[in-house]
């Protein structure tokens, strides 16, 4: 049986759920909106046993052979945010228990929380990516305006973005930003050499690799500022060595599913920008028709 944990209207969760139904796979859905009422027991000794009591019935966790997890931050769900503190604590405890079970269960987990954690620090993840043979953009993290000026001078065009997994819009540094350089002392900030070229998104799901090219003139194609910057997405075949590097990166991070952001420069050089361990793959799937959800369902169903 496959357990899916998330919010049903979340497109990736809905797509994986539908793909599992198409396969005729038995499935249990843990709706994150049920965290205020669910109960759970977890026993660990030489063995692992557990029980999850949901509004739809009781679930024996020993029967679970595959898990797809994509929960939102529970405290931000309206039902939880508006609940009394004791209920909020209970919701947090259930989250924690499910995360704990996701780490210790022998089931195939897409993906285990510890394996996903590298995404919380982009420079930490960059070092892991580089160790697998990919080039990564030169990066400076600093609280020092002189160091930033020197880095900018060295690379000509640079961008800034968050260091952590908190989503930020990649923004080019322009002369008008100089008036804010003194603010650097308040918090270390990440700058990167701007890599010109075409964005390539690769989804690795088990043994399957799906690549697509994104054509957009925006600095960050996820946030087009005007209609002309709206991305065009099409399926491509990766060169074999790049395909191989993508598989190696994902395997080295103990992930079963990942969305990898690459950039190919005009002179054919490939950089890896980031690995997303909980990709919103449906955006690319709907644009290309790539059967990513079916592949994930296959990974989850494998014995």
């Amino acid at each position, binding site marked *: 049986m496959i357990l899916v944990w998330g919010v049903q209207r979340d497109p990736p969760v809905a797509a994986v759920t539908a793909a599992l139904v198409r396969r005729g796979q038995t499935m249990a859905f843990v709706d994150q909106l049920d965290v205020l009422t669910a109960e759970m027991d977890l026993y660990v000794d030489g063995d692992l046993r557990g029980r999850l009591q949901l509004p739809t019935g009781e679930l024996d966790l020993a029967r679970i052979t595959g898990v797809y997890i994509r929960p939102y931050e529970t405290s931000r769900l309206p039902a939880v945010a508006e609940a009394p503190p004791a209920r909020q604590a209970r919701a947090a405890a259930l989250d924690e228990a499910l995360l704990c079970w996701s780490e210790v269960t022998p089931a195939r987990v897409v993906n285990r929380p510890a394996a996903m954690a590298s995404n*919380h620090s982009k420079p930490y993840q960059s070092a892991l990516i580089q160790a697998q043979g990919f080039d990564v953009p030169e990066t400076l993290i600093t609280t020092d305006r002189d160091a930033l000026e020197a880095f900018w001078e060295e690379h000509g065009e640079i961008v800034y973005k968050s260091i952590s997994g908190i989503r930020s819009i990649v923004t080019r540094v322009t002369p008008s930003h100089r008036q804010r350089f003194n603010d650097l002392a308040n918090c270390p900030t990440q700058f990167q050499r701007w890599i010109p070229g075409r964005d390539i998104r690769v989804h690795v799901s088990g043994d399957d690799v799906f690549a697509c090219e994104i054509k957009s003139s925006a600095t960050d194609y996820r946030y087009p500022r005007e209609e002309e910057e709206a991305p065009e997405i099409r399926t491509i075949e990766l060169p074999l060595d790049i395909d191989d590097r993508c598989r190696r990166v994902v395997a080295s991070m103990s992930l079963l599913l990942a969305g990898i952001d690459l950039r190919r420069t005009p002179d054919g050089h490939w950089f890896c920008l980031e690995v997303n361990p909980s990709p919103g793959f449906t955006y690319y799937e709907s644009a290309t028709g790539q059967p990513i959800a079916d592949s994930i369902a296959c990974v989850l169903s494998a014995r």
Partner: protein
Amino acid sequence: MIVVVASIHDARALRIVAEWGSKSAAVLSAEDLCMPGWVFRVPIDPHTTAVIGGQKIPGERISGILTLRPCIFPEELQDTQAAHRTYVAAELNAFLLAWLTAQSSRVVNRPTACCLAGPNWRPEQWTQAAARLDIPARTWRHIPSHNCIPNDGETLEVITVGEQCFGCGDSGLREKSLKLAQAAGVELLSVRFSVDRTRFVSASAWPSLTDPAVLEAVRQRLETPR
């Protein structure tokens, strides 16, 4: 120089730095991370600059790092506007993780993606690791009530520092503790067993470090090249 990564309000960290001497040890606090002077590059450049104890320090001067915190909490960033504390804490943790991981000197305990010091395992993960090493152990967690770890009150503690053990002198428990530390990938670990010496009770990658012999072993470990 030995760097102790801790809160400036952590009395234990201040005591350790006082013990080791302020010329050879200093606390790296969240406040230090928000001061001018930090320079860190990826791909890794050995010529980085850190700010430790309010002073700019070239990376080459750092001989070892003792990390006494799992993360920086938003609540401790009192100099940051309340609305920005969660974001700034996430940024500081992400930076500190990358910086600690990149250090060529010894870091005790080395960070993982989940924690600035060690694997940050839950009781169930320690229990599973112990059971896999044939050390009898069990935990039970029930929601909505609390986590239930069998605790007989009195326990026997073994503290591992590298290959050395302190605390309970039972050679069997010491051997089990070293195996558990190795399985967890940590150099510094406190392991507690039941008083009848038959069962693992709990483990922590943040021992109290009140025993002078343990503290001296940690200092020697930090001054030993990796």
